[in-house]
């Protein structure tokens, strides 16, 4: 399996505090990669670097390279808007816009220049189907998105991200704010999506990582401690720190 994102010696500082230390990792295409680790280990920071969402935070310094395909994403010539179209993001707390369901999903395509009602209708339907929520909302596309339940809102956010046809989907603890049933719906969804998309998911829930991911990366204090096939990492971890973390012997 080829790598779609290659990270080499990535370091990141928030002011004087170093949050990522020399992280190097190759993310394989069309698979699910899980990022695990205790709170504050840098996994969310790492995720947000991949689509340059960290640009929004002042005072950040980055060294090292992140290559998406052949392109260095920190190059001045890189169009950030296009980068974020191809590398989409789903956040921890569902954040649909205070607009109709239709407008939420159509927001991305409209941003990138898609006009014409027929075309947008198509995209909205396709995205909502891909996110396994079409049947639940097809009769109320004009209703405000905030009227949906938490789990539905999160699937709507996934549909919104899928609407621009990304290649990679970044998910930052997407189910931590949801009930068990919504959580398993979204896990099922991720497993279906990995045929078409590369998914990188940050999760606190190790059982979730074991259930759905192909590869797992364990972060600790800003370092990438271990990275490998999920089954192997969880049954025979190489590094003792990994073993201690996954067996719950330290927080």
């Amino acid at each position, binding site marked *: 399996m080829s790598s779609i994102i290659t990270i080499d010696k990535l370091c990141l500082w928030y002011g004087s505090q170093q949050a990522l230390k020399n992280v190097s990792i190759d993310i394989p295409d069309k698979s699910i990669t899980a990022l695990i680790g205790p709170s504050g280990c840098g996994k969310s920071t790492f995720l947000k670097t991949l*689509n340059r*969402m960290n640009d*929004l935070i*002042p005072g950040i310094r980055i060294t090292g390279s992140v290559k998406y395909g052949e392109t260095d994403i920190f190059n001045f010539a890189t169009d*950030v*808007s*296009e*980068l*974020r*179209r191809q590398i*989409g*993001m789903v*956040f921890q*707390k569902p*954040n*649909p*816009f*205070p607009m109709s369901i239709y407008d939420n999903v159509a*927001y*991305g395509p409209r*941003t*990138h220049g898609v006009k014409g009602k027929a075309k947008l209708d198509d995209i909205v339907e396709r995205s909502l189907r891909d996110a396994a929520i079409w049947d639940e909302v097809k009769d109320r596309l004009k209703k*405000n998105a*905030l*009227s949906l339940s938490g789990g539905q809102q999160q699937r709507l*956010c996934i549909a*919104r*991200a899928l609407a*621009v046809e990304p290649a990679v989907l970044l998910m930052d603890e997407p189910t931590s704010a949801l009930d068990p049933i919504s959580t398993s719906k979204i896990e099922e969804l991720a497993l279906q999506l990995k045929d078409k998309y590369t998914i990188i998911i940050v999760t606190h829930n190790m059982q979730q990582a074991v259930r759905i991911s192909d590869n797992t990366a364990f972060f600790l204090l800003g370092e990438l401690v271990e990275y490998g096939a999920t089954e192997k990492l969880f049954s025979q971890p190489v590094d003792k720190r990994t073993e201690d973390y996954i067996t719950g012997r330290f927080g």
Partner: protein
Amino acid sequence: MLNGKLSRKRRGYIGLMRALMYAFAALTCALVLFLIAYVLVKGVPNISWELLSTSPSYLTERIGILPDILNTVYIVIATLLIVLPLGVGAAIYLTEYAKNKRVVAVIEYAAETLSGIPSIIYGLVGMLFFCQFLGMQTSLLAGALTLVIMNLPTIMRTTQESLKTVPQSYREGAFGLGAGKWRVIRTVVLPGCVDGIITGCILSVGRILGESAALLFTAGFAHALNGIFEGLTSAGATLTVALYVYAKEQGEFGAAFAIAAILMGLTLVINLAAALTQRYFRRKKAL
């Protein structure tokens, strides 16, 4: 063991305090009611269709406040047209774009201070700067510009408050989809702020209607009946200024109280409009 009863002295004290508070509240209400009643009683009998629809005529010794009404309208329109883009734009800059926290703090402090300066000083400065230095002479436009400076802090503050209530997660979501900064502001942030901006507008209109001292120096007291463009470039009295002139300089207390009654009515209407608008938007947001 807990003794459930208070001592007589304590009960007396509590009772006295409560009575005192009631008295103060009653006094406040009474003052307001007295004021409203006095003005209405003295003013309403003087309001007639003739008063409202004609301009003053020395020949027939008739008093008409139509030009004053029109001047007020022109000044409100002119002020709003200028202060809204300036105030909203400044607020957007401060909340969304400015990175240096100290600069933002300085600008906000300056705006706060501006709103506290006595309005007659604005009048003086406006007269010297707009009327004499920029050569606008005594005109409604000079008055409008002076009012712009006075109302800028209000618009800025209400817009900023509104912008701050928009959750950061909306912006993140929009950025994550590849939208640029201005698009994010235009499509996700501003729509949520419209209610705050409108409220700020209404409050400003209230302030403009009530302003007299600043306009005295800058807009003058003419009673000519003009169209909007001519009106803006010439001197004119607004309702408040007219009130002053009729009361102090012409001794026409009847007309003065009539204007006072009208102004009071307008104030009540404005306040009601502001409250209703807020309630409407709050209900809309709760959906």
